[in-house]
């Protein structure tokens, strides 16, 4: 929660970083979260920061 706020504070787009608590028995939640996040990040485009030359 704190790290997410820090990253957004220094200019990372909201949604690029996410933390979710998903138990091993929650397969559907895992799949839904992954799908949701992949779509959100594809829409944002590649991250231009933290790139090694």
């Amino acid at each position, binding site marked *: *929660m*704190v790290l997410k706020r*820090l990253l957004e*504070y*220094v*200019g*990372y787009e909201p949604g690029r970083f996410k933390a*979710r*608590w998903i138990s091993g028995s929650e397969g559907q939640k895992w799949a839904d979260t992954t799908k949701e996040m992949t779509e959100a990040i594809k829409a944002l485009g590649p991250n231009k920061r*933290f790139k090694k030359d």
Partner: protein
Amino acid sequence: MNKVTENLRQTAAKLLKDQEVEMVIGYGLGSEAVRTQPVFITSPDDVDKLVWNPFCVNGLTKYLSDLKTLSGKIAVCVKGCDSRGVFRITQDNIIPRDKVVVLGIPCAGQMSYTKLASKMDVTGQLKEVDDKGETLVIKTSNGDFTVKKSEVILDKCLKCESHNPVVADHMVGDKVSVTDTPDDYDEIKKYEAMSPEEKAKFWLSQFDRCIRCYACRNSCPGCTCRECIFDAIKPDWVGKEMNLDENELFHLTRAFHLAGRCVDCGECDRVCPMDIPIRLLNKKLLKDCKELFGMETPGSAEEGGSVLGQYRLEDPEEFM
């Protein structure tokens, strides 16, 4: 000589003479009129080196960590802001509380060297400071100068949440009656309101200037790891190169290591030779931790710890 300096010297002399402490850490006259430097006194004959004036900007609590191997007790002078550093260091088990004798100095605000340097000749040696309420008369070997306090006070002192030290074994000086003005985080809100692009532009231009001197870490009472990740010979995931990406990682990591622990003394900002507003990062984390976990500024009380190292049932759970 002012009353506080006199008191301070007497207290220090007594502590050293009675062998209650092995060392007194305080402020001494600096290389220029409006500078002070830390002094480390071990003999009662040297207590005349101690001074108290409106230029005692340094925080001295970090030295407790550097000198933790000393066998005897250490007395350290603290103002309101850096008094929280004492509890940071004792809570982190760097040095036991009973090995520290805190000499608390109530402080109405310290004067900024940079602001003073633009108003007067600072190159002489300080003779005396006359506090006239609204103004200061600074008598130096290069002449006398009168400055308005409100024009030269440190920015951080305008938003001070404890003018009087939160802890003191010996209070040298009378409590000041200046009203405490806890930070309203207006400045942080201003940066929060910017668009992601503006934020990225601002912060990357700040991180780009970092020369990785680690002065911020070295002066910080919260940065006391026995082996700092940035000192590791072969760090796993953070590089030692000085480039924008590694610098950004350094600043974000350091800020996050202090999340919920930073005592908000403002030393990181003061010591940065590149004028990177490091405190804006720490303040953001302070604001968030206060909002999320309802904590007070770390180091305000003897007991406590890091909110991120504790679990309470009522903690928010955005990640569920």
